[in-house]
């Protein structure tokens, strides 16, 4: 068997053009989909588009109905469950009689509501940074990788400050019930730090401590996930549909910021231990998680004011997803992985969250 000659990129381009031209003919007016019947669709609920397009001769029948619409029954059921669990914290703007938290109405939406929607961001980011510093320090890599904080002491201080500010914001607010259970669970953070201290003090920390690092990362991730769950509960309790959509998009953006960072960490772990089935499984798990989150964000923001911002961020996130896919196949390109992570950290999720915050603030 002889090797095939390597084509030039020009030859690849040429074959691509011919392939596209050939296959595109499958959909040409004279192709297999030709159907001169009237368009047999209407937009949901009828409407002008259906009426107008039905008058077009030659329009194809469309065999698939819309599938991306969120199941209304499921959404309604979820909202009811959430409202019940949260003590019916259903409020937004108008009902200020029972609220003495300094609620300020602006543009039909309460600025306090918006403040409560975005309040978890600083805490999530601080915990994310503390997680990264902790896991890399456990592995003895603190001097080899640029970390988001100088050391664990600084990272913990930043987290504590963010939590204190968060607790002040949510105290006595209509979101207090929703967020309080998370604040009450912070014993877990104290326990995690306590458990971690002996490992951090070990002078022989090295890559053999990968299992410990994975456990540490998971414990931090659980704390962050619980916080984001609380944010999602609060978002679902908002009456105003536009504000609720923004709050949900914001929560998903936060989850993606944290999840993308965890995915990058999994790529690094996989590179450090190329023969470990554990790290490859972790990588696959986070790859799938982030893929699902991206899909959900794109689908849920479609047709909302947040669509463009989400599409841009999702597109920017593709680089890291591609890196993860390559890593799963054992082809990690570390500089490319860092570039993808840096791009996400600098341009994707922070920009998306800032944009959603701005849109929320303007009502």
């Amino acid at each position, binding site marked *: 068997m002889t090797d095939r000659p390597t084509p030039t*990129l020009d030859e690849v381009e040429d074959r691509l053009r011919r392939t596209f031209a*050939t296959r595109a003919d499958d959909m040409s007016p004279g*192709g297999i989909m030709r159907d001169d019947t009237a368009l047999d669709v209407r937009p949901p609920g009828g409407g002008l588009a259906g009426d107008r397009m039905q008058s077009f001769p030659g329009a194809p029948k469309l065999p698939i109905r819309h599938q991306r619409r969120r199941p209304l029954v499921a959404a309604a059921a979820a909202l009811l469950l959430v409202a019940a669990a949260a003590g019916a914290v259903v409020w937004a703007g108008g009902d200020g009689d029972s609220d003495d938290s300094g609620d300020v109405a602006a543009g039909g939406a309460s600025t306090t509501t918006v403040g409560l929607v975005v309040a978890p961001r600083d805490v999530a980011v601080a915990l994310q940074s503390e997680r990264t510093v902790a896991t890399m320090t456990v592995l003895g890599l603190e001097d080899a990788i640029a970390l988001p904080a100088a050391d664990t002491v600084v990272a913990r201080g930043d987290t504590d400050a963010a939590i204190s500010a968060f607790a002040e914001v949510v105290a006595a607010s209509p979101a207090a019930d929703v967020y309080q259970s998370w604040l009450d669970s912070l014993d877990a953070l104290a326990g995690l730090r306590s458990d971690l201290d002996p490992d951090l003090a070990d002078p022989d920390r090295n890559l053999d401590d990968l299992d410990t690092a994975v456990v540490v990362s998971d414990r931090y991730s659980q704390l962050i996930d619980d916080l984001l769950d609380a944010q999602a509960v609060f978002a679902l309790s908002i009456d105003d549909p536009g504000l609720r959509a923004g709050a949900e998009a914001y929560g998903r953006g936060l989850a993606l910021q944290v999840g993308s960072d965890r995915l990058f960490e999994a790529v690094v772990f996989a590179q450090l231990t190329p023969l470990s089935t554990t790290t490859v499984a972790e990588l696959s798990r986070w790859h799938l998680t982030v893929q699902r989150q991206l899909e959900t964000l794109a*689908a849920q923001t479609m047709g909302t004011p947040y669509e463009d911002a989400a599409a*841009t961020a999702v597109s920017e996130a593709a680089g890291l997803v591609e890196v993860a896919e390559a890593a799963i196949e054992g082809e990690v390109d570390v500089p490319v992985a860092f570039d993808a992570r840096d791009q996400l950290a600098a341009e994707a999720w922070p920009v998306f969250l800032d944009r959603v915050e701005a849109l929320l603030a303007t009502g």
Partner: protein
Amino acid sequence: MADTRAGPDSEAFERVYRSERDRLRRVAYLMTRRHDVADELVHDAFERLHQRWETVEVPPAFLRTTLVRLCLTWRDRAAMGAAREPRSGPAGRVDPPEIDEMWDLLARLPREQHVALVLRFYEDLPVDEIARVMGCRPSTARTRIHRALTRLREEMTS
């Protein structure tokens, strides 16, 4: 109840529909590899144009951007478990083997790379326009195209 979107723009909308529909169907098919899905997404794109008709300045550009993002989203859903489409073209048609091979190789590319290739080598869009349509930076679009070509070349020799 009167629909304020109706009126003198009907003919203009129909002209756009007639002039853009077939091209968009072909682009959508190249991106999704499924005739039925391509038709649905093109329909969705026109529906969105119709809803925003009064505010859209360049309908063909709006349609292209909307369709690309719909295709990207659909491929996100498909990637969660749908089987790959078979290579075969229309029944009874036999394509040259190199066309079938390239069609198969395209199915293995990440979705953003696949879409970028369609925009570059079927639509002949410049990189800046591809970036705008896909909602990314030009450097990102350029990287995707380059990586896709490199990967295709590697696969063609393996």
